C-alpha cells in the first residue's frame, strides 16, 4: 500500500480535519467572541478543500488510481461530485448562521457558539468519507462521524426546549437506525466473509440465502432512515421544526447528499449483482416518499415542517432515479440532487430573512401573508423556489423532474413514472398555496430587520441557478453527472 498516494487522495479531508482541530483551539481560547472569525476560517477551509477536488473532478479519476488505503476508500469521480455538493452546502450553512444566532430568534443565548463551525467541519469530513467509502467499516465510521456532529448541532440552542427535543429525538432514532444498519452489516459479513464492498459483492452472487437477504434489507433500512425516506421518515418534521433554522438548512442539504450518495454506492457496488433483491424495496420507498411527502405537507401550518415534508417528497424522486438501476438513472439522480440542494438553500436563506420587529423569525403561513407587499424581493425569490420545487417549467426544478421521469420511462417503468407524476401534481398544491398566501392574502404584521449582504448574495445566487438561467449550467452539470454515474458502474 502506497501511503503517500493514499494521503494525497484524502487531502481534502486532511485539510478539513486540520482546520477543525486548529479552530477548536481558537474556539476554546477565544470563546464565543471568536465565533464569527471561526466561521469565516471554517468556510475558507471548506473552500480550500473544494479547490483541491477540482482537478480530479475536471479530469476524472477512476479505476485503481482512485483506491486509497488498500481499498478502504474509493475517491472516484462519483465521490468527488458528491463532495463538491457537500462542501458547497456546508459553506452555505456557515454563511447563514451568524445573523440567526445573533438575533432574538436564537432565544436567550445570543450569539453563535464558536463550536458550531467546528462541528460543521467535522461533519463535512464524515460526509466526505461516507461518499468515498469502499468498505463497510469506513462507511459506518463516516456515517457515525456525520451523525454525531448532527445530533449536537440539532441541540446547540440548549436553553431552547424545541432544540433540545429535536436533538434528543434525532439522537435516539439515529442510534436505533445505526444499530439496524450495523446488524445488517454484521449479517452480510457473516454470510459473505468480508467487509470490503468487492468481497461482499463476490459473496452475494447466485441464489441469495435468507440471512444475506435480511442483511441487505437491514442495511437499506438503516440508510433509508438517514435519508428520511418513507417509512423511516417520522423523525424528519419534528427535527426540522425544532432544530435552529441554519441547522435545518444544513440537515436538508449536505447530510442528505452524503446519505443518498452512500446509498447509491451501496446498492450499485455491493448489491449490484442482485438488482432484483433491492429494486422493489427502493422503488417502494421512492413512491411512498413521493406520495406521503405530498400528502403530509398539505395540512402543515409551520413552514419548516412544510419544507421537511417537501424534502421527503424530493428524496422520493431521487430514489426513483436510483430504482431505475442503470447509469442514466444514477446520472439523473445526481442532477436532481444538485438542483434540490440549490432550491433548499434558497428557501431556507429566504426564511431566515423574515423577521418581525423584535427580530423573531417568521415560521408559519399566517406570518407570510401578503409578503409581496411588505418584502417584494424575498417574495419573488420564494415564488421562484416554490414553483421550481413544484416542477413548473421553465424553472430548473422542472428539468430535474424531467430527467428523472425520462430515465424511468426509458427503463420501461412507465407505471411507476405515472404514479410519481400524479403524486407530484398533488405536491404542487402546497407549493402553490405558499405562493398564493404570499401574493393574494392581506398583509399582516410588519416584516422588518435588515438582512445581511451574505444572505442576499446566497438568495440571489440560488435564485439565479434555479431560474431559466440555470439551463446554461445543465450541459456541464449533465456531463459531470454522467461521468460520476459511469464510475459507479465500472465495477459491474
Amino acid at each position, binding site marked *: 500500500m502506497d501511503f503517500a498516494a493514499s494521503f494525497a487522495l484524502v487531502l481534502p479531508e486532511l485539510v478539513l480535519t486540520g482546520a477543525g482541530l486548529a479552530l477548536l483551539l481558537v474556539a476554546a481560547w477565544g470563546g464565543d467572541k471568536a465565533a464569527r472569525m471561526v466561521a469565516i476560517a471554517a468556510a475558507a477551509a471548506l473552500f480550500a478543500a473544494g479547490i483541491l477536488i477540482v482537478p480530479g473532478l475536471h479530469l476524472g479519476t477512476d479505476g485503481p488510481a482512485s483506491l486509497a488505503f488498500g481499498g478502504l476508500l474509493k475517491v472516484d469521480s462519483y465521490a468527488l461530485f458528491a463532495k463538491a455538493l457537500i462542501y458547497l452546502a456546508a459553506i452555505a450553512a456557515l454563511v447563514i448562521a451568524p445573523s440567526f444566532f445573533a438575533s432574538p430568534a436564537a432565544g436567550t443565548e445570543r450569539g453563535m457558539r464558536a463550536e458550531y463551525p467546528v*462541528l460543521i467541519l467535522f461533519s463535512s469530513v464524515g460526509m466526505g468519507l461516507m461518499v468515498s467509502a469502499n468498505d463497510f467499516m469506513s462507511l459506518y465510521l463516516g456515517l457515525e462521524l456525520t451523525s454525531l456532529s448532527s445530533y*449536537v448541532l440539532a*441541540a446547540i440552542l440548549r436553553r431552547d426546549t424545541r432544540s433540545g427535543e429535536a436533538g434528543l429525538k434525532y439522537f435516539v432514532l439515529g442510534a436505533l437506525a445505526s444499530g439496524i444498519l450495523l446488524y445488517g452489516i454484521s449479517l452480510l459479513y457473516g454470510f459473505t*466473509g*468480508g467487509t*470490503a464492498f468487492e468481497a461482499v459483492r463476490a459473496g452475494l452472487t447466485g441464489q441469495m440465502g435468507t440471512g444475506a437477504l435480511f442483511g441487505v434489507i437491514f442495511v437499506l433500512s438503516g440508510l433509508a432512515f438517514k435519508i428520511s425516506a418513507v417509512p423511516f421518515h417520522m423523525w424528519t418534521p419534528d427535527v426540522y421544526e425544532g432544530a435552529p433554522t441554519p441547522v435545518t438548512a444544513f440537515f436538508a442539504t449536505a447530510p442528505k447528499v452524503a446519505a443518498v450518495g452512500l446509498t447509491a454506492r451501496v446498492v450499485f457496488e455491493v448489491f449490484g449483482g442482485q438488482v432484483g433483491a433491492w429494486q422493489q424495496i427502493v422503488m417502494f420507498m421512492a413512491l411512498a416518499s413521493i406520495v406521503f411527502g405530498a400528502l403530509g405537507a398539505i395540512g402543515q401550518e409551520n413552514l419548516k415542517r412544510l419544507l421537511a415534508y417537501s424534502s421527503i417528497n424530493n428524496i422520493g424522486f431521487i430514489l426513483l432515479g436510483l430504482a431505475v438501476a442503470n447509469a442514466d438513472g444514477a446520472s439523473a439522480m445526481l442532477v436532481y440532487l444538485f438542483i434540490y440542494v440549490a432550491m433548499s438553500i434558497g428557501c431556507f436563506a429566504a426564511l431566515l430573512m423574515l423577521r418581525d420587529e423584535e427580530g423573531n423569525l417568521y415560521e408559519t403561513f399566517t406570518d407570510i401573508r401578503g409578503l409581496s407587499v411588505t418584502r417584494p424581493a424575498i417574495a419573488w425569490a420564494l415564488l421562484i423556489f416554490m414553483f421550481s420545487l413544484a416542477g413548473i417549467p421553465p424553472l430548473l426544478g422542472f428539468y430535474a423532474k424531467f430527467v428523472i421521469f425520462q430515465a424511468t420511462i426509458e427503463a420501461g417503468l412507465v407505471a411507476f413514472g405515472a404514479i410519481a407524476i400524479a403524486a407530484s401534481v398533488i405536491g404542487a398544491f402546497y407549493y402553490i398555496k405558499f405562493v398564493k398566501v404570499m401574493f393574494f392574502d392581506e398583509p399582516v404584521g410588519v416584516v422588518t430587520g435588515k438582512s445581511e449582504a451574505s444572505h442576499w448574495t446566497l438568495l440571489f445566487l440560488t435564485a439565479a441557478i434555479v431560474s431559466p438561467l440555470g439551463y446554461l449550467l445543465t450541459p456541464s452539470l449533465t456531463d459531470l453527472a454522467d461521468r460520476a454515474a459511469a464510475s459507479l458502474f465500472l465495477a459491474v
Partner: protein
Amino acid sequence: MLIQAIAFYFFAAIVIASAVMVVMARNPVHSVLWLILAFFNAAGLMVLLGAEFIAMLLVIVYVGAVAVLFLFVVMMLDIDFAAMRAGFSRNAPLGLLIAAVLLAELLLGFGAYNAGGLTLGTPDGTAMQAADTSNIEALGALLYGRYIILFEIAGIILLVAMIGAIVLTFQPPKPGARARQDVGKQIRRRPEEATVMKSPEVGQGIEL
C-alpha cells in the same frame, strides 16, 4: 504439558472461586475486590492461550478502569445491597432459565462450529497474521498500517463526542462571580497577617 495443565487448573479454579465470592460476599466492597481477582486470573488464562494482547487489555481496561469505577460507585452511592439481595430466591427460577438458554446457545454454537466455520477476513489474505509475529505486533501492524485511516477517524469521532458533551452541558461562569485562585498570593500569606493573638479574660468568651 503438565505445567500448562497445572497453571490452567490453578487459574480456572481461582476464577470460579472468586466469581462465586463476588456473588456471596456480604460487603459490596469485598465483592468488587473478588471481581478484580477474577479478572486477574482470567488474564492469566488468556496468556496461557497465547492471547497476550487480550490479557493486557483485561488488566488495563477491566481492572484499571471498570473495577475501580465499580469501587467508586459502591463506596460513593448509598445502595442497600441487602434489599437487592432479598429477592434472590424469588428470582432464582428466572435466572436459571436464562442460564439454561445461554447454555443451549453455547452448545448450538459449538455444534455449528464443528460442522465447519466460515472463513472470515479479507479475501486476498492481506489481513492475515504473519506466522512469526506476536499478536500484539500483528494487531499493531493492522491498526497502524492497513487500517490507519479508520483508526484516526475513530479518534475524531471520540473528539466530536467530547466536544458535544462540553457544548451541551458546560455552563460558563457568570462574570464577576468567579472565584479565582491566586497561588502566589496564597503562598505569600504569613501567619502574622492571617492570625490574631488574643488573651481574653476568663468568662469573657471569644471575639469573632
